[in-house]
């Protein structure tokens, strides 16, 4: 343990305050719309609670020097509240969690980031977006989501899967329920299945000019919106959605303590892995400090560790960094020396990643919390 570098000596409250203070302002800025006057008391109260929650989690991240534990709390709760907020919004607007032909024909379906993988080829060839959504107006418009996807891809690469994706929190949560895995050995080669999904979905969607993953294979349709059951085909689709959700998001993560859906099935994760190649941040392995204990391999939820080294599919969640007893794994800025200023590398990474997480999940966090509070008063 003596070789593990301390990110900050515990008790260095001053430095923690110094690093957390700007984050208070930034989080306040990003939640300002929710904190502003004119909202209901419950909504304002929820926004204040959210602000305090986000700030306290960031403080713990800085003060304890451990990333994953506190990130996961925000990430998982954010995913749950996102779904609560999203579903209640749908019920308010449509009186149902399902969408019908009317929503598709009037192009009012919210655009999800996973659709990006399916629109690339038709956008390049036909110069059109194959999705029945709104370009500018409305919730999750196409232009806003594409801007967000491009922005975070450049800055944090596949870190989106652990710091932003409002679906990822589901299997991150279920993978942490059991203390020990029931299925202990999961071959890390399974992570390449996601790339196969990317290739197939891109080609299949381009050929049919419709987003096939959304139409047939998205497990998160079970907790967001899905097609109304009107005939046998839509019945089969819903069976597929719910089955995939139960198997890939609940059962397998529970048994393996790995994020099976994100690591092996999501085509967006595979696409973002390619951005990891050009991303300025990575998690670096130092062979001179490594004692081959294998704790990183067991800890990694994304099957991204091979020979104790993080690979292309690393989502920079920080779990291996926290688990490593000798500090052989650490956040790193590409182009710099891996044995110097690693604490700054970590801080430089978690700052934009946390701001991104708060901004993307913050609004629905507040709405979801307000809905829950309203149930009790």
């Amino acid at each position, binding site marked *: 343990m003596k070789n593990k570098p301390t990110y900050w000596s515990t008790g260095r409250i001053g430095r923690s305050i110094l690093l957390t203070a700007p984050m208070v302002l*930034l989080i306040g*800025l*990003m939640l300002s719309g929710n904190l502003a006057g004119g909202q209901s008391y419950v909504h304002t109260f929820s926004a204040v609670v959210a602000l305090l929650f986000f700030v306290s989690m960031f403080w713990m991240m800085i003060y304890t020097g451990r990333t994953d534990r506190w990130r996961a709390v925000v990430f998982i709760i954010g995913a749950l509240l996102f779904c609560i907020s999203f579903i209640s919004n749908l019920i308010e607007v449509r009186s149902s969690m399902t969408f*019908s*032909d*009317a929503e*598709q*024909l*009037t*192009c009012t379906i919210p655009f999800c980031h996973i659709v990006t993988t399916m629109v690339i080829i*038709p*956008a*390049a*060839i*036909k*110069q*059109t*977006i*194959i*999705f*029945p*959504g709104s*370009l*500018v107006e409305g919730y999750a*418009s*196409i*232009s*806003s989501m*594409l*801007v*967000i996807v491009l*922005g*975070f891809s*450049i*800055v*944090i690469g596949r870190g989106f899967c652990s710091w932003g994706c409002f679906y990822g929190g589901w299997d991150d949560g279920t993978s942490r329920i059991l203390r020990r895995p029931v299925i202990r050995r999961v071959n890390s080669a399974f992570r390449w299945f996601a790339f196969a999904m990317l290739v197939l979905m891109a080609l299949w969607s*381009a*050929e049919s*000019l*419709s987003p096939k993953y959304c139409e047939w294979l998205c497990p998160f349709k079970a907790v967001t919106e899905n097609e109304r059951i009107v005939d046998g085909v839509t019945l089969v689709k819903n069976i597929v959605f719910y089955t995939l959700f139960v198997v890939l998001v609940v059962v397998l993560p529970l048994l393996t303590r790995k994020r099976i859906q994100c690591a092996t099935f999501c085509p967006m994760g595979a696409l973002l892995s390619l951005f990891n190649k050009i991303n*300025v*941040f990575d998690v670096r392995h130092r062979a001179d400090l490594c004692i081959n204990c294998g704790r990183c391999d067991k800890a990694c939820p994304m099957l991204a560790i091979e020979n104790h080294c993080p690979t292309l599919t690393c989502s920079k969640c920080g779990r291996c960094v926290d688990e490593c007893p000798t500090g052989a794994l650490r956040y790193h*800025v*590409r*182009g*710099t*020396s891996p044995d110097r*200023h690693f604490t*700054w*590398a970590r801080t*430089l*990474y978690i*700052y*934009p990643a946390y*701001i*991104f997480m708060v*901004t993307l999940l913050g609004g629905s966090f507040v709405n979801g919390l307000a809905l829950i509070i309203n149930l009790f008063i």
Partner: protein
Amino acid sequence: MKKIISFFAYLWAALGTIIILAVFIGMGGWQQLAMRLPFMRIDPVFTGGTVVDTLQVDSVMVLVHEPVFPGLFSEGDEGFVQIDVRQCPTDTLRLDSLPVAGNVIALSLTPASAMANDLSVTEFARISDGWIVRLELKKLD
């Protein structure tokens, strides 16, 4: 040299926070910029294509779109033509002698069904002030 590379690496890393903030704070501007990209238009498969004819039948407005034959590199042999019926106050409607894509059709609409003579209805939806109907078209050899 290493120090210069390190400097720019840390600078780029530090800019990450600025970029993330800029993305969200300046979202309106970025959206306007994104809209100028050539591919930022919804495929006619979903929008029904551009409106080529607007008809006023009594108080009802009928918008006839151009025929759409979906295909990745070239148009396919099968497609559809979309008809939007707007400003209709009643729950049922019958429209006779509608000129649509070279055909003259009669359209019968209720909240639960849509029927046309000669052309088969592939999709239809009841919306707040009318209907959206898609009729199947096939290219003649």
